[in-house]
């Protein structure tokens, strides 16, 4: 899809900058579909973007953002993904920053925002709990008000990047007398606070640590680190979760993966012909490629055209993550028996095999999470049943 000339020249500028400045080691991690980049690598890339003023793409100019149009933001996200560069840091940059800009006190804006822009602070999101997953509002992790501070006891789970984060924003129960959406308070805390314990959770894909359980024992948070009103955090959470209009469909990332898959299949022989010429394989590949195209065109139409308000994010997340998983499943199958290699085998112990064998299985299993996190695809269907179909 081509936009107007000024947007297309912006695209070239982004492409040139990203491809010139992206360090090789970071590129190769992303090209292997890794989302568990080390903190140092994420910070290095963030600061390369910050030099250009691009580190916090959705923010307004007055807080250090580029003040881009929707088209610019769309093009930026596409070019970053096609170059195999890392995603923007979702928790600080994508979620907390805009929420502070909307709801934070002047002091919070002054102290928090510049440290996100500079890459000094990494944030994680403390929302889900062992007993509150899809039913998030039933969360119980308690923050008891004691004069000028809150005292937190309980636990959060599935917390991405808690193992590398400096700070956490989270939802805590401050009142359980009313409706479950009432009595939730939005607090900010340091991961180094006394009483915070992070236990990594190994996922079955065998890759690096991405998710954690976080335990709180008498963790103290000053009242000025509350965002919004006491007991009224649910509204902020809804705002924060509605921010991600772009990218939930993962189209850009899927296009990059599909391109890799096609090139691999063109060079890989099965029998005496390239795999891509095998009719069964070609049929599967083509179906998936066309499905991805349908998601891509729908994303464009809903973002820039006459799409219905509100339903976009759910529809795109649902179909986008399904097709993303289909692509990675096909990559796994294309690699064939060498995909069986356990991803934890050290480089020197691996048999001679195509590069893709190193990560195809890990990526295929790891990405099952995209259909579960950020509101499982079943929750997205519930949302659409209510919001779009009026059920």
């Amino acid at each position: 899809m081509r936009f107007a000339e000024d947007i297309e020249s912006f695209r070239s500028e982004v492409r040139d900058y990203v491809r010139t400045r992206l360090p090789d080691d970071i590129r190769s991690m992303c090209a292997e579909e890794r989302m568990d980049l080390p903190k140092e690598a994420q910070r290095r890339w963030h600061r390369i973007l910050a030099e250009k003023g691009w580190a916090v793409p959705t923010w307004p100019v007055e807080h250090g953002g580029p003040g881009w149009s929707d088209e610019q933001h769309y093009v930026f996200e596409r070019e970053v993904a096609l170059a195999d560069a890392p995603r923007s840091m979702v928790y600080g940059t994508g979620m907390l920053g805009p929420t502070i800009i909307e709801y934070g006190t002047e002091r919070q804006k002054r102290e928090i925002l510049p440290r996100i822009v500079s890459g000094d602070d990494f944030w994680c999101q403390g929302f889900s709990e062992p007993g509150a997953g899809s039913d998030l509002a039933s969360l119980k992790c308690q923050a008891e008000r004691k004069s000028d501070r809150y005292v937190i006891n309980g636990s959060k789970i599935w917390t991405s990047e808690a193992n590398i984060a400096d700070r956490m924003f989270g939802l805590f129960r401050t009142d359980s007398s009313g409706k479950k959406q009432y009595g939730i308070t939005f607090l900010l805390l340091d991961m180094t606070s006394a009483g915070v314990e992070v236990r990594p959770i190994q996922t079955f894909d065998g890759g690096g640590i991405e998710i954690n359980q976080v335990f709180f024992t008498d963790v103290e948070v000053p009242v000025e680190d509350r965002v919004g009103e006491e007991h009224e955090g649910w509204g902020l959470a809804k705002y924060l979760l509605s921010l991600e209009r772009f990218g939930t469909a993962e189209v850009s990332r899927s296009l990059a993966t599909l391109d890799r898959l096609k090139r691999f299949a063109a060079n890989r022989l099965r029998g005496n012909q390239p795999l891509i010429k095998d009719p069964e394989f070609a049929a599967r590949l083509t179906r998936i490629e066309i499905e991805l195209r349908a998601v891509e065109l729908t994303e464009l139409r809903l973002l820039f055209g006459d799409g219905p308000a509100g339903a976009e994010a759910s529809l795109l997340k649902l179909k986008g993550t399904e097709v993303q998983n289909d692509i990675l499943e096909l990559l796994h199958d294309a690699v064939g028996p060498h995909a069986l290699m356990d991803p934890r085998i050290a480089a020197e112990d691996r048999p001679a095999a195509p590069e893709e064998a190193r990560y195809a299985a890990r990526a295929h299993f790891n990405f099952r999470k995209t259909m579960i996190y950020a509101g499982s695809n079943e929750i997205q269907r519930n949302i659409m049943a209510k919001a779009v179909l009026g059920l």
Partner: protein
Amino acid sequence: MFALTEEQTLIRETAGRYLADNFDFTARQKALALGYGLDRARWQEFAEMGWLGLPFAEELGGAGGTLMDAAILCEQFGRFLMMTPYATAVAGAGHVLARTGASPDLLAGLISGKCVLACALTDGDGAVRTDTLGQALTLSGTKIAAPFAGDADHLLVSAEGGTVLCLIPASDAKISTYRTYDGAEAGDVTFTAAAVPPSMILSTDADTLSLLEDTLTALACAEASGIMWALQEQTLEYLKTREQFGNRLSSFQALQHRLVDVYVTCQLAQSMAWDAVAALEDGCTPEERSRRVSAAKAFVSEAGRKLGQECVQLHGGIGMTDEIPVGHGLKRLTAISIQHGDAPHHRRRFRRLDPLAL
């Protein structure tokens, strides 16, 4: 392609109102009881409303609209399961006549509704071949399942595997017509050394046929998209009212999720259909155009009939009856899925036209 223009919204609303008033499902059933062919009186009304000239330039006698305008009309025809030669003969073949500059008189006839054209593009067992006869050509062979061939004054015929495209009076062919399950009429067309004068030979290369096929295919996608939306709305409405086990069917989560998937499929198909039509007008290369159209048709062929089957299933017993539109929608979507190339055909074409050339 991302949003309708003001005119297109107006076309959608005007056509929707007209078709609801004159061609609702009851009227359709009555008309089908009388016959499956083209209702010439109705066709004249379409001409008077300006629909037949919609996508043609004013100097050609048209309304100066775009192919997308015609596609919006096709969507509405789809919603009402309106079976007409509009997409094939007027918007499709007319688009190619206008682009090639061939036979302006015939185009004027199409726009006025005086002349009806049918496209005979699918070879039967004896493929249509040509012989030279001085400056002219002769056609011999059989075309099958040409929509509304029995109602046509002229036929647009492909021959020699698609390298020759020509016009011929319908009276120069033997046409045997039959009803089709979607409520239309088709014809098998046999030529026996039928003469075609040079002025009626539109092209002797495959590019023009490819343009014609892409146009017809894109419009079929638009029609399918309209049918899909109608079935989605009817099914949702029915499940909101039907009660079993003391509850409305729409209150059951298993069914809600299936209704959501039906809705999602409609949105995806709509995007694909509009992109296919846009590909014919936005100046992309012929290869890219054909690839975009094939992507849309492969998607719509499969998703459309699957959606139709799902809507029948969600209706339950009543969905099996001839009395409500849902089964008729499924039949039309199934017909579209094998007309203008089925899903495997378009997947192969999409793969072949991949710019990566892998």
